């Protein structure tokens, strides 16, 4: 096995994910990003919620917290407030982050605390057998929408930008190298950094939507993604059906834990 996997994984493999599940490709990209960042592993914390994707924390050789469904961000917020020097990575599914955890997501974006959130968007509740999530595209089939969903498409990145996150990006598992680079940039950004990763669930999503082969799902992402740079030069009609990947938004943050530390210092100095 490759050295970087030995360094950043605990070695309790094989993992529980199904054959061809895209989660492993994201986990591999994270290990490559860690190899580039060369952080002290003892100073890194991985926090996840509940779902197939959230099982990732059981495999990473850093400090980890596997928490409650939709609540990875509140736990991560607590970790960062108590230990602002820690590097915090949060892992969440599309159900975990956008459905049950949607409210926490909005407030984490708003607070803009320095951490990296990786959302595995496989468009489905994988773990519980394939119910549709807020990020299931319009018209797609699932066990709870056997004739196709009637919910309009929902864009998590737009929500993140609207709620105030200072770094918002989208990646995908076909562009694994670019995904690694996005994770590095997200970590280096000094505020709340969101990466929505287009991942795949061949079992609970692919099989219902006539794309059961894992390789076909990966190739779908190859054919249907365009970089932000290219999308900016295309007409709205041309971009409409495409998945835009890359850094979508970035601004200088007013980082929460730094502002809090300033407040403490000011009050300890007796100022009002």
């Amino acid at each position, binding site marked *: 096995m490759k050295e970087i996997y030995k360094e950043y994984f605990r070695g309790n493999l094989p993992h529980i994910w199904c054959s*061809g599940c895209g989660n*492993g*490709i994201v986990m*591999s990209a994270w290990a490559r990003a860690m190899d580039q960042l060369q952080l002290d592993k003892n100073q890194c914390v991985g926090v996840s919620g509940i779902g197939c994707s959230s099982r990732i924390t059981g495999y990473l050789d850093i400090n980890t917290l596997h928490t409650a469904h939709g609540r990875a961000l509140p736990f991560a917020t607590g970790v960062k407030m108590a230990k602002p020097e820690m590097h915090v990575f949060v892992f969440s599914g599309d159900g975990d982050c956008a459905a049950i955890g949607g409210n926490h997501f909005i407030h984490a974006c708003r607070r803009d605390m320095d951490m990296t959130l990786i959302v595995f968007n496989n468009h489905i509740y994988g773990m519980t057998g394939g119910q549709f999530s807020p990020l299931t595209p319009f018209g797609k089939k699932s066990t709870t929408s056997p004739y196709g969903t009637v919910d309009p498409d929902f864009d998590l990145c737009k929500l993140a930008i609207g709620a105030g996150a200072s770094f918002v990006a989208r990646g995908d598992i076909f562009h694994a*190298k670019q995904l690694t680079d996005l994770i590095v940039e997200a970590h280096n950004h000094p505020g709340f950094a969101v990466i929505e990763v287009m991942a795949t669930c061949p079992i609970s999503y692919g099989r219902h939507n006539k794309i059961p082969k894992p390789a076909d799902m990966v190739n779908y992402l190859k054919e249907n993604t365009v970089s932000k740079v290219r999308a900016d030069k295309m007409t709205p009609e041309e971009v409409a059906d495409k998945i835009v990947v890359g850094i979508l938004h970035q601004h200088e943050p007013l980082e929460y834990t730094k502002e809090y530390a300033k407040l403490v210092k000011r009050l300890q100095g007796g100022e009002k």
Partner: protein
Amino acid sequence: MAKKLYNVTVQEKLCKACGICIALCPTKVFGATAEGKANVNNADACTGCLTCEMHCPDFCVEVEARENE
């Protein structure tokens, strides 16, 4: 200059026969066993692009430059 060569290995125990490396390799380095697991049947065609390594969801493919023979 001689073509650069690579060793490609698959850890059979970890392979879950998903077919991703087999389909994505641009130079058709992999074949499939009867169970659908990847096997390396043409390592000399490998260009070292690392597509298989980065896309194996089970971390079982490894590509390394061959030492000069």
